[in-house]
């Protein structure tokens, strides 16, 4: 029984190591694809449109809702201490440092990350990726690197839109609905938010973008290698779910690590 347990443990350990190796290979090939020519600008712009423009609606409503809730709850808490003039500071710092990068990455993982994973998974099981290899066309240069670059550019841009819309939402809730002075809201924001805060938010959004696109594309690309995923369409659906869960958890874990290091 102990031997069986040790064998299973060793087997799992080997699988995890192999999987990490696969994913490291994947990211290195995807990044090397940036330097391979010809660069597919059309595919890159199509992905920017899909990941960036296509996510605007969900980002807008998530940001507006988050900002308004922050405005109301912030007012409720600060008003108890007569500090409702600090509402602008509280809302903007919370959004720029934490919620903007995190929620944007989670939304993109759910909307575009799942789609990228499923697309690559289907291409893998229908042998389209093998077909590219057989035609001596590098699948990374052809369609994975454009997804990588597009995500790394789109998520920080979406994050900045999230921040602006969220701060506007906080303004609507705090100033227009709860009666906080507009001057103090704006003053609190401009006096407390520094370039360093904006830089932290930007670094986080870039790191989260890499995590989301790496995990989602990597899982889809290796759909046939994932243990317990099954076969065919079922494997794609399971691996897509796994990719969204894994990328979301990774974003949250790295959010803490980056906050601890950068703050």
């Amino acid at each position, binding site marked *: 029984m102990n031997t069986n347990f040790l064998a299973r443990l060793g*087997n799992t350990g080997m699988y995890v190591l192999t999987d990490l190796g696969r994913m490291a290979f994947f990211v290195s090939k995807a990044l090397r694809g940036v330097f391979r020519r010809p660069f597919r600008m059309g595919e890159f712009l199509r992905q920017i449109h899909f990941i960036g423009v296509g996510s605007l609606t969900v980002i807008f409503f998530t940001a507006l809702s988050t900002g308004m809730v922050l405005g109301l709850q912030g007012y409720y808490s600060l008003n108890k201490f007569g500090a409702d003039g600090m509402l602008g500071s509280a809302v903007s710092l919370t959004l720029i440092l934490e919620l903007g990068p995190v929620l944007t990455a989670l939304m993109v993982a759910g909307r575009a990350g799942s789609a990228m994973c499923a697309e690559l998974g289907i291409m893998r099981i229908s*042998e389209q990726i093998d077909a590219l290899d*057989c035609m001596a066309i590098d699948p990374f240069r052809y369609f994975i690197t454009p997804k990588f670059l597009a995500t790394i550019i789109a998520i920080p841009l979406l994050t900045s839109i999230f921040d602006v819309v969220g701060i506007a939402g906080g303004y609507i809730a705090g100033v227009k609905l709860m009666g906080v002075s507009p001057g103090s809201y704006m003053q609190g924001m401009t006096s407390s938010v520094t370039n360093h805060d904006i830089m932290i938010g930007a670094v986080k959004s870039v790191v989260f973008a890499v995590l989301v696109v790496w995990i989602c594309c990597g899982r889809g690309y290796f759909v046939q290698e994932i243990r317990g995923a099954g076969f065919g369409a079922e494997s794609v659906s399971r691996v897509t779910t796994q990719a969204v869960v894994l990328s979301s958890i990774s974003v949250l874990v790295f959010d803490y690590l980056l906050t601890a290091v950068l703050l």
Partner: protein
Amino acid sequence: MVNAAIEFKDVRKSFTKKDGSVQHILDGVDFIVPPGKTTVIAGGSGQGKSVTLKLVLRLMDADSGRIFIHGEDVTRVRGKKLETLRTQFGVLFQGSALFDSLTVFENIALPLRERTSKSEEEIFEQVHASLAQFELTGHDAKYPAQLSGGMRKRVGLARAMQLQPSIMLFDEPTTGLDPVMTQEIYHLFASTQAEFGFTSVIVSHDIPKIFNLADQVIILDKGRMDVFESPEEIQWSEKEHIQDFVKTTMGEIYQSQLVEK
């Protein structure tokens, strides 16, 4: 060695199952695919037919042994050499492996756009000539989802032929096709091979029909390979597992056909 289009020397390939046990798919196999001829690889499910094709294409690595293409040892080639090697092959996949987001024209033009320096005008002319050859004229703007199974195969074949490969690999080329369409695809194979003179390797379950095309038959069973100079030779094999294969896979109809020949 130079006379072989493809040569396997003592090639071994095994996979580790989920429970940790090892399954030997190819257990030291040797064979030669002669140039300009048609070789059919047959065998039961999970016997390593598709693995053999993937090893030829270097989509996976052999555990040991050596693989030669036109006399060159390609067992461990990487990078640019591997790309050059792959341009010698055309592959028709089981499900055709067409790109769903590309039209028929774009699918066929893909290798020309990515692997040659031809102008768009030259590509247009070549692709339309292929469309006519494979009876696909008028379907160039359609997407793969709008095509029948037989048409998808023809598009896949047209795409595979664009770089004029010296070796064509067919992985279960008639799976999912009705008998009429199957016959049509076989005629297409025969006519394109006669025109271009490429070497064919066909992995198929479609026995005995596929044997009519074969110059050589390889039967895979439990990691071993048996090579026959002609389909008729299979019938007279005294090996027990070959006799079992003839009985279970080819059936009495084929046996009677062979006797008639």
